């Protein structure tokens, strides 16, 4: 997976600015994903590429439109040194996998990364470095594996 690299404190106003939240569909909103930080992101991002942030990724507003536009563009995994709380919860609820990697700052724009889920390893094919992946707690894993909170609660009941 190709890396799209962002820095510390990427807030949800950067992921989807407030002026676009009234657009009637997620598809229209998604065209403005991360616009203040990377104006060409929505046009250039290809589904399945890896989003990487520094500390406190997703801080700020609770807007679930932020992880939803990322999901709309095909983001399945986000890796960061740390995540903000509401964004973390929103991603789990939407079935987007979050990986906390203390060394996420060593990944750079354009690096090729492979995630080996079986052996819980992250392999940077560009730099040949390997990292241990800390597994998500069982509770969160159950929700993500169900595809999000909606299906998790439906199956539970």
């Amino acid at each position: 997976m190709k890396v799209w690299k962002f820095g510390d404190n990427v807030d949800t106003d950067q992921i989807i600015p407030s002026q676009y939240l009234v657009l009637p569909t997620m598809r229209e909103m998604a065209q403005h994903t991360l616009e203040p930080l990377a104006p060409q992101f929505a046009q250039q991002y290809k589904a399945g590429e890896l989003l990487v942030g520094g500390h406190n990724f997703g801080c700020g507003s609770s807007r679930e439109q932020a992880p939803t536009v990322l999901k709309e563009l095909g983001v399945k995994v986000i890796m960061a040194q740390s995540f903000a709380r509401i964004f973390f919860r929103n991603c789990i609820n939407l079935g987007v996998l979050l990986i906390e990697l203390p060394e996420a700052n060593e990944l750079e724009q354009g690096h090729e990364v492979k995630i080996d889920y079986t052996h819980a390893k992250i392999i940077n094919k560009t730099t040949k470095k390997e990292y241990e992946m800390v597994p998500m707690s069982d509770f969160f894993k159950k929700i993500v594996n169900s595809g999000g909170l909606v299906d998790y609660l439906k199956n539970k009941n």
Partner: protein
Amino acid sequence: MNITEKIIAKHAKKEKVVPGEIVEVDVDYCMANDATICLNIDIFKNKFGFKKVWDPAKVVFLIEHQLPADSVNTSESHKKIREFSHAQGVQLHERDGVCHQVMFEKYVKPGQLIVAADSHTCSYGCLGAFSTGMGSTDIAAVMGSGKTWLKVPETILVDLSGKLKPGVYAKDVILKLCGEITAAGATYKSIEFTGSLIKNLSISERFTLCNMVVEMGGKSAMIAPDQTIKECYQAQDIDWKLLQPDADAKYEKVLKYDVSKLEPQVACPHFVDNVKNLKELLDTPIDQGFIGSCTNGRLDDLRIAARILHHKKIHPNVRLLVTPASVTVYQRALKEGLIDIFLEAGAIINHPGCSTCWGACQGVMASGQTLISTANRNFKGRAGSPESKIYLASPATVAASVVEGKIVDPRRYL
């Protein structure tokens, strides 16, 4: 247990909870506003397949982020909110003010557990309620079931002692703390404020402290209700014992600050923890001032600003927007003559709502412009163009700065 743990345990119907434990809790109120209600409704109906909200008296919707509607798209979303609200019988407030201020005035009681689709929901800790922000899927689940899951947070005890100097306010205290604790320093945690400073703070000032806990990543805020709060809620049936920490209450850590020597603080672009002493920023040119928001749009904030602006004119190159936090605040400010003072000084008065703080309507900034604001966020583009800048400060600092068209020390005007 500490107060946060006690409230969560009570709502989880458990004798005891410990940090890290995941529990299912009953919710007292679930709130959402026009920034996300349409998404909540879509998930509620089309993903969960719910037909009715669990209790219409406990679901509160507010139109206040983008009010009055400024585009056809906004108006269409407001229409959907009204239709759903009327069909379901939920509590709809269409012109009453910023969601957190209206919750504070009309709904929240000490000891309650409240969740809402807005990050500044942590504010209600000022009344001794546990409250936290969530996203739309979580809120849609609560709308349908009245329940949610919570991970019991670790609590940081922030002990504030000393007396504030004239011209230094609760806003300066919380900005200082954001700088010290940093934007992620309290992630997943609750912050409980205590210490001798607290009893000298009005409820409004305590609100300002709790409101910005999320800017340090915090999940919730808490202040043990004291006599000030008890007097306001004496007619209510409230279990006050629940709202004091047990003798063996545990905290992850205790941070002590003496505020006696604190100077006015300013958060600089583009991060809330980029905080400096105001004196390092003197003479920074500004284009617009904003006095309002759930952080600092209450009556005491407007009084402080009006005292500075009385018989003065704002600088000719500067605009000032004043947006009272609620209609109740607005009416009191009118009766006290504060609104007249702002109008005479050259301000624009907006109807209560999120206004400039939200960055999508009312006073949006152009590229290259600088805003000084009493709000809670200065993220890149938060008030309009990503090429604009936002400084955060107290109402006194904003009022003094718009008179001179640059950042100045408000103490010269007191």
